[in-house]
């Protein structure tokens, strides 16, 4: 048991240099603004004096290394600078909008796992059947579909043609009241408030964007599940298990799937990377008030502090998700910690 504990502690420790690297890169990105960063932050209507003032205020007249430490100190205090367009601190804007993005992304990932993993298992257990062909089609189509285009097609079909989806504008139609803020996740908050109408309204708004993202993330998971199940099923221990007369269910789920799960969980890391990127595009299509559309709005008005804050926030979120995935390994894989140093 202690071996496992050490391994988990080691894995958490490994995240630290990655976080440092992420911070260094975002520092470089904030300082690599085109032209003079001070002029950028001062805005369009700046005089030479006000630019000089901004330069001093931002500490841009100091040596680069010192600037980096000031940047780190500000980060530790949760200061990502001020947004030019709204005048509010970037951190509070991001924090206010993060639940919307997380609700969308996590729902989509949940849906896509719920579909693609059984699909991959079925395809692997019946190679060449129609399920396998369907899996192959979905996998090839899924990686070729531009997320923003799928979203637009879904809006056209389900909103304009069929009229069964609500208008693609935000998290909740204006006829509903926002549920009292507890977690920021409308699905959870409306359940806590026992407001089933709002819950229904939230689900209705969520279906199309979540489907768009799920379609995009289906392909890699289904592909990896199928491949991993195929290789697990052809392994010697499965032959032994079958020869020992274990039930089909036990062989399939107790032995093959449990082993196939490891590469699938590893792929999830890559899928998260794509999903967080696709999130930006989906949020723009559906006018979803998350951090992705915040960053897009900020890009349009050259609000660089907001964009860089968004990039850093996304990277930290991704590092955190990867850490969670690796820790999930320790639960799934009983070998974890025994072979690791």
């Amino acid at each position, binding site marked *: 048991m202690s071996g496992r504990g050490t391994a988990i502690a080691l894995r958490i420790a490994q995240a630290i240099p990655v976080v440092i690297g992420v911070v260094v890169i975002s520092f470089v990105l904030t300082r690599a603004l085109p032209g003079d960063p001070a002029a950028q932050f001062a805005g369009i209507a700046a005089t030479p004096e006000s630019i000089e003032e901004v330069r001093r205020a931002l500490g841009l007249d100091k040596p680069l290394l010192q600037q980096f430490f000031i940047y780190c100190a500000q980060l530790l205090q949760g200061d990502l600078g001020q947004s030019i367009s709204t005048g509010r601190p970037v951190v509070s804007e991001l924090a206010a909008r993060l639940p919307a993005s997380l609700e969308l992304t996590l729902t989509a990932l949940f849906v896509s796992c719920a579909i693609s993993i059984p699909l991959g298992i079925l395809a692997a257990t019946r190679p060449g059947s129609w399920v396998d062909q369907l899996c192959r089609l979905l996998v090839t189509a899924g990686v070729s579909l*531009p997320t923003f285009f799928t979203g637009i*097609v879904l809006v056209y079909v389900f909103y304009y043609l069929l009229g069964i989806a609500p208008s693609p504008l935000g998290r909740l139609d204006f006829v509903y009241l926002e549920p009292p803020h507890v977690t920021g996740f409308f699905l959870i908050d409306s359940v806590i408030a026992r407001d089933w109408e709002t819950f229904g309204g939230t689900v209705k708004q969520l279906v199309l964007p979540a489907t768009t993202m799920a379609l995009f993330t289906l392909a890699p998971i289904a592909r990896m599940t199928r491949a991993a199940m195929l290789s697990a099923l052809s392994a010697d221990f499965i032959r032994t298990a079958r020869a020992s007369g274990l039930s089909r269910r036990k062989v399939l789920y107790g032995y093959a799937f449990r082993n196939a799960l490891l590469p699938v969980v590893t792929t999830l890391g890559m899928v998260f990377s794509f999903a967080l*990127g696709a999130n930006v595009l989906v949020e723009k299509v559906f006018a979803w008030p998350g951090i992705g559309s915040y960053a897009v709005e900020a890009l349009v008005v050259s609000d660089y502090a907001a964009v860089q804050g968004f990039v850093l926030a996304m990277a930290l979120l991704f590092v955190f998700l990867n850490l969670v995935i690796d820790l999930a390994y320790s639960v799934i894989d009983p070998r974890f910690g025994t072979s690791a140093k």
Partner: protein
Amino acid sequence: MKMTEITTPAAPAPAPPAPKGSGTLKHIGYVLRENPVTGLSFLMFAGLLISAAIGPWIVPYDPLATNAAAVLQPPSATHWFGTDNLGRDVFSRVIVATRLDLIISVAAVTLSFIFGSVIGALAGYRGGWFDIIASRCLDTIMAFPLFVLAMGIVAALGNSVANIIYATAIINIPFYARLVRAEVNIRREAGFTLAAKLAGNSDARVLAFHIFPNALPPMMVQVSLNLGWAILNAAGLSFIGLGVRPPTPEWGIMVAEGANYIVSGEWWMALFPGLWLMLAVFTFNLMGDGLRDIVDPRRRT
């Protein structure tokens, strides 16, 4: 077409382990026959290249010419893909856009191929501190959600097409570098490497002419799969308003312009550029899968 491919190889034996030179051709013929989709993807790729090369001269209308008399017209015989909100012909714009989209993705993939190969080969061959530092840097790039990092880079470097290319190249470098590093690393102590060194070749020469060519086949597969992804990435960036400026025809920005009209039912403005984009990505993905079958039958999934 298939007949010539079957008859050209000199070796008559139909068994798979045929003699070397003719075996490759035979194998390609075999893969194409087994999987005609691969052949189709090569044809589609040729079509894309042709429309990129001569597109501006064969399209029926000037892609930038506005026509206030023919605004938002649905697809018809005169305007195959309809017209947009300024009366521009969507078909002409879609075809002309092929060149820009291909240039962006090819340039980005070329850059990441070159830099990825150099970094990966040096890291794999020399090992030591260079390997550690390079691997750490690549890990840090991979620690970002890649599309988000590309957004950040374009925002930092400035909003231009060239910077879209650089950003797409940077986020792709780790894939190439890791692949080359692994391929070089396993051959560092191989017999032919030692023989080449004993024969008096310099390290650089051994690395460039003896070890690196072995990494090329998996690299070509990666390039093909990557091209599709690079196009998607670039189109995504221009969809959110980065890089390409409005009057320029480009698939991503055309879908973005069309998105504003989709809720009022003008579907053709967004559909056709989106379909073309999909087709291009689909072509590259199919080609990548086909190349993988040709290069390495074991990795088929």
